[in-house]
C-alpha cells in the first residue's frame, strides 16, 4: 500500500465507461458538514481513484455497491449503515449491494476501527451527506443526458423520474452514458427530515444473514486460499514469561510438519504443517525455555485492586458534612476478572509474498493495528492489504489481537499462505481480560428520604491503558483510566458527591471488554442506590425517580424507568418466592432501565423475566436494536450469574467452557425490549445495555431474601 496521504479525493472514474467510484474521506470532527470541507480542499473533476476513503461507493450497470467501512461482528452494522445510505441514495435494499471494505477501500487508520458503540453515531450524518451527494451527482448528469432541468427529476428506487412524463433513467444508465467530467454539487445537499424517512427506523432484512444460514459466510477462521498450510504458535507458561532460548527440538520431525519457525528475540516459536492438528501436535516437541513472568494469584490481584485513594474525578457540595448526618449506608462491591469468550476464537490467514505484498484475512475489529503489527516486523513501507472478515463475536478482544502477525510470520517462512486459528484454551488463557474492580461507597439519606450525599471510591485494572503503549509514568500522572469512566457517575441529583478513582497495572493483561467500565460500575452504583432506597424506607423505583434531575439526562432516565416499570408490572403482586429488582444506566448517550424478576433456589439465582426499556435517541433498525439490547442483557446476566476467571501461579485456571461457564439456553429468560426514541440523533446501542442487568438481579435478590449480594458473580448464601 502506498504511504498514507491525507490528500482528499472525492471521485475516481473506473477504467472504461460505466463505473463511477466515489470515495469519501471524512473529517469527522469538523464542525461543518464534512463533505463540504474536502470538496473545497480538493476541488472537483475527474481524479485518481480515492485514497484512504472512509466511505466508498461504486455504481456500475449491476447497481450500487457500498463498501461498508465498519466491521460486522453480529451487531448488524452492515445492515444499519446500508439503510442509512439507501435512505438518501433513494435505492431499495435489493438495489444496494453491501460489501465489507478492505483496507484499499477504507481508511484503516480511522473509520474502520469498530469499537465503543460509535459506528452509527459517528457515521449517521456524514454517510447521509455522502449518499445524497452521490445521488445529486447522478441527478445532474441524468438531467444533462435527458435534456431536462435537474429540478424536474425525482429520485426513487434507483432511477430518476421526469415530472409530468413517463420518462425515467436508472442510475446505472446514467453512469454508462456519462461523458466528460462529473460535477460535484457546490453545497451539501439538504438531508431528508425524519418524517420523510422510508428506510431509517424500519425493519430491514440483515445483509449478512443469508450467508450465515447457508453456512457460506466467511469468518476469519474460515478464510482459505489454494495451497495453504496451517500454523500453531507456542504460548508462554505464565503471563509475562520471556522466551530465553528456543530450538526446533524434535518438532521438525513430527508428522506433517513443513517448517519450524523461531524468532526467539521476538518471543516467537511456531510450527507450519499440512493440517492444523499436526501443527498443534508438534508444538510440545519444540525445545523452549521460558523464564520469569508473574506468579500472581487471584488473591494478589484483589489485594492490588483496593479502592480508597486516587484521582478525584468529581466533587460537588460538602460530602463530609453530608455524611455526618442522616442515616449512613455503606457498601463495598467487587467484580472479577472476566473473559470475552467470543465464540469464534482469534483467527487469520496471511499470504506473504517474498519482498512483496502482504495480504491478510483477519477476524479483527481494528485493521490498522494489523497493518502496524505487520509493518513493525516486515518493514515500515511494506505493502499490506487487510481484508476484515465476518467476526464470530468481538466484544473488544478483536480490537487487540495478533493472529494475523502470527500467520504472517509463518507464511513468510514457508512462502505459502498460512492460517492460524486459536484453540479455545489459547483464547481463554492467553488473552487480555475485563479487569477486576473494587468499589467502596458511603452515602446518607435524610429522615424525609432525600439523598444527602455520596462518597465513592473505585479501583480497577487498566482498560485502555492496558492496550496502548502509553508509559506507566504518564498513566500514573493521569491517575485514572478513561475506560473506567464509563458508568462511573451516579446520574442522580443530590447535594454532595465525591468520586475518587484509582487505576492499577496488573500483572495479568487487561483491556477492552464490551462496554468497558459500564457493567462493573453500574453494578456497584445501582446496587448502592438500592441500598440507599431501602435505608430511606422508599420503593426503589420511586426513590430513583425522586432523585432524577430536571435536565435532559433526568428526563430520559425517567422515560425509560417509567416505561420498563409499567411493562414489568412493577408493584403488582408476584407468585410466592419471586421478587423484582430495578436498575438504570446512562451510557454513551443511551438511557436504559431494566426490571428483573428472580427467584433463588438452592443457592442459585434464577432470572425468570427481564423487561428493559432503552432510549438510544433515534433507532435506525428496530429489529437490530432489540437484538443488541437482548444480547447485552444476556451477556450481562452471564457475568452476573456465572463468569469469573481464576488466576493461579500466573496462569488462568479455566481453560474451556467446562470451567468457564457462560449463560446457557436453559437459564436464559425472556427479555422484553421496549424502544424509546427521544431524539433526532442515534446514540450507542452495542454496549450501554450491558449496564443495568447485574444490579437489577442483585436488587431483586435483596428484596426476596434480605441478603445484599455485593460481589459478582452473585452467589446467594455465600456472602
Amino acid at each position, binding site marked *: 500500500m502506498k504511504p498514507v496521504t491525507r490528500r482528499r479525493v472525492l471521485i475516481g472514474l473506473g477504467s472504461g465507461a460505466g463505473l463511477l467510484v466515489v470515495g469519501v474521506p471524512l473529517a469527522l470532527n469538523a464542525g461543518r458538514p464534512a463533505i463540504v470541507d474536502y470538496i473545497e480542499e480538493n476541488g472537483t473533476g475527474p481524479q485518481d481513484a480515492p485514497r484512504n476513503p472512509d466511505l466508498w461507493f461504486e455504481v456500475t450497470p449491476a447497481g450500487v455497491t457500498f463498501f461498508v467501512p465498519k466491521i460486522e461482528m453480529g451487531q448488524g452494522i452492515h445492515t444499519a449503515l446500508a439503510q442509512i445510505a439507501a435512505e438518501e441514495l433513494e435505492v431499495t435494499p435489493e438495489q444496494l449491494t453491501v460489501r465489507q471494505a478492505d483496507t484499499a477501500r477504507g481508511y484503516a487508520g480511522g473509520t474502520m476501527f469498530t469499537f465503543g458503540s460509535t459506528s452509527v453515531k459517528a457515521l449517521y450524518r456524514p454517510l447521509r451527506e455522502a449518499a445524497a451527494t452521490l445521488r445529486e451527482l447522478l441527478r445532474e448528469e441524468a438531467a444533462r443526458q435527458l435534456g431536462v432541468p435537474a429540478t424536474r427529476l425525482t429520485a426513487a428506487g434507483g432511477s430518476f423520474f421526469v415530472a409530468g412524463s413517463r420518462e425515467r433513467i436508472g442510475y446505472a444508465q446514467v453512469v454508462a452514458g456519462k461523458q466528460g467530467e462529473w460535477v460535484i454539487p457546490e453545497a451539501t445537499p439538504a438531508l431528508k427530515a425524519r418524517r420523510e424517512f422510508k428506510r431509517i427506523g424500519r425493519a430491514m432484512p440483515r445483509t449478512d444473514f443469508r450467508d450465515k*444460514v447457508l453456512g457460506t459466510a466467511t469468518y476469519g*477462521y474460515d478464510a482459505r486460499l489454494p495451497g495453504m498450510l496451517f500454523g500453531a504458535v507456542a504460548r508462554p507458561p505464565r503471563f509475562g514469561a520471556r522466551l530465553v532460548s528456543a530450538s526446533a527440538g524434535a518438532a521438525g520431525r513430527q508428522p506433517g510438519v513443513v517448517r519450524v519457525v523461531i524468532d526467539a528475540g521476538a518471543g516467537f516459536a511456531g510450527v507450519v504443517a499440512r493440517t492444523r*492438528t499436526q501443527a498443534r501436535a508438534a508444538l510440545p516437541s519444540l525445545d523452549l525455555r521460558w523464564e520469569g513472568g508473574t506468579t500472581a494469584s487471584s488473591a494478589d490481584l484483589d489485594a492490588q485492586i483496593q479502592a480508597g485513594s486516587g484521582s478525584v474525578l468529581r466533587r460537588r457540595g460538602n460530602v463530609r458534612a453530608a455524611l455526618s448526618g442522616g442515616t449512613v449506608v455503606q457498601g463495598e462491591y467487587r467484580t472479577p476478572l472476566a473473559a470475552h469468550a467470543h465464540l469464534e476464537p482469534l483467527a487469520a490467514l496471511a499470504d506473504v509474498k517474498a519482498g512483496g505484498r502482504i495480504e491478510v484475512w483477519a477476524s479483527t475489529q481494528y485493521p490498522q493495528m494489523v497493518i502496524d503489527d505487520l509493518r513493525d516486523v516486515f518493514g515500515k513501507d511494506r505493502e499490506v492489504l487487510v481484508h476484515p472478515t*465476518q467476526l*464470530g463475536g468481538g466484544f473488544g478482544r478483536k480490537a487487540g489481537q495478533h493472529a494475523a502477525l502470527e500467520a504472517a510470520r509463518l507464511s513468510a517462512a514457508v512462502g505459502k499462505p498460512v492460517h492460524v486459528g486459536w484453540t479455545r484454551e489459547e483464547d481463554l488463557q492467553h488473552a487480555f481480560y475485563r479487569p477486576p474492580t473494587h468499589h467502596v461507597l458511603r452515602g446518607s439519606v435524610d429522615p424525609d428520604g432525600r439523598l444527602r450525599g455520596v462518597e465513592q471510591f473505585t479501583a480497577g485494572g487498566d482498560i485502555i491503558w492496558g492496550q496502548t503503549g502509553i508509559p506507566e509514568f504518564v498513566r500514573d500522572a493521569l491517575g485514572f483510566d478513561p475506560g473506567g469512566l464509563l458508568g462511573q457517575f451516579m446520574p442522580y441529583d443530590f447535594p454532595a458527591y465525591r468520586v475518587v478513582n484509582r487505576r492499577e497495572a496488573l500483572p495479568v493483561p487487561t483491556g477492552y471488554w464490551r462496554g468497558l467500565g459500564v457493567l462493573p460500575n453500574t453494578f456497584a452504583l445501582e446496587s448502592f442506590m438500592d441500598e440507599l432506597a431501602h435505608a430511606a424506607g422508599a420503593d426503589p423505583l420511586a426513590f430513583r425517580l425522586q432523585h432524577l434531575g430536571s435536565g435532559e439526562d433526568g428526563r430520559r432516565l425517567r422515560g425509560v424507568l417509567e416505561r420498563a416499570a409499567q411493562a414489568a408490572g412493577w408493584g403488582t403482586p408476584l407468585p410466592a418466592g419471586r421478587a423484582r429488582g430495578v436498575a438504570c444506566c446512562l451510557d454513551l448517550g443511551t438511557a436504559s432501565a431494566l426490571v428483573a424478576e428472580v427467584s433463588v433456589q438452592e443457592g442459585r439465582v434464577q432470572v425468570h423475566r427481564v423487561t428493559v426499556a432503552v432510549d438510544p435517541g433515534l433507532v435506525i433498525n428496530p429489529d437490530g436494536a432489540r437484538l443488541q439490547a437482548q444480547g447485552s442483557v444476556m451477556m450481562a446476566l452471564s457475568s452476573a450469574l456465572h463468569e469469573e476467571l481464576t488466576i493461579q501461579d500466573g496462569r488462568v485456571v479455566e481453560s474451556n*467452557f467446562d470451567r468457564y461457564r457462560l449463560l446457557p439456553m436453559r437459564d436464559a429468560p425472556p427479555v422484553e425490549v421496549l424502544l424509546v426514541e427521544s431524539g433526532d440523533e442515534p446514540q450507542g446501542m452495542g454496549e450501554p445495555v450491558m449496564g443495568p442487568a447485574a444490579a437489577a438481579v442483585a436488587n431483586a435478590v435483596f428484596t426476596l431474601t434480605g441478603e445484599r449480594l455485593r460481589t459478582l458473580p452473585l452467589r446467594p448464601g455465600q456472602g
Partner: protein
Amino acid sequence: MQLSVNGRRREVAYPDELLVWVLRDELGLTGTHYGCGIGACGSCTVLLDGQVARACLTPARAAAGREVTTVEGLAHGEQLHPVQRAFLENPLQCGWCLPGHLMSAAALLERTPNPTDAQIKEAAGVNLCRCGGYNAIRRAVARAAELKREDG
C-alpha cells in the same frame, strides 16, 4: 478413506483427525464451526445418519459408512430448509453458533414435529450463543416447526 458428506462421496486424507477439522480444513466445508473442542458449545454440531453429533469429539473415521450432514447440506438447491428460513426471519447476531442451532433444530423437528418450548430448550442442550440470541433461537425453532408443517 471415503466419507459421505451431504450426499457426496469425499476422499479424506486424514481419517484419524477430528471430523470438525476434516470438514473445515480438508473438505472446505467451513460452515461447521469450532468453538471449544470439548463438546461444550455446540458450534460444531453435525448430523450423523440424522442424529446430532459433535464434530469436535468425533474422529473422522467414526463417520465412515454413515451419512454426514452439515449446514451446507440442509438446503435442497435453492429451497432452504425450514430451519434456515425460520432463522432468516429471526436472525441472531454474529452467527458463529448458528450451524449448531440449525443442525440441532433440524434433528429435533425430525423426531418431534411439534416441540414444546421446554423441548426446544432441552434440544438446544449445550449449544451456547455468546451474543445472547436465546430468545430469537426459541422463536426461530418454533417457527421452523410451523414452516415444516406447512411444507408438508
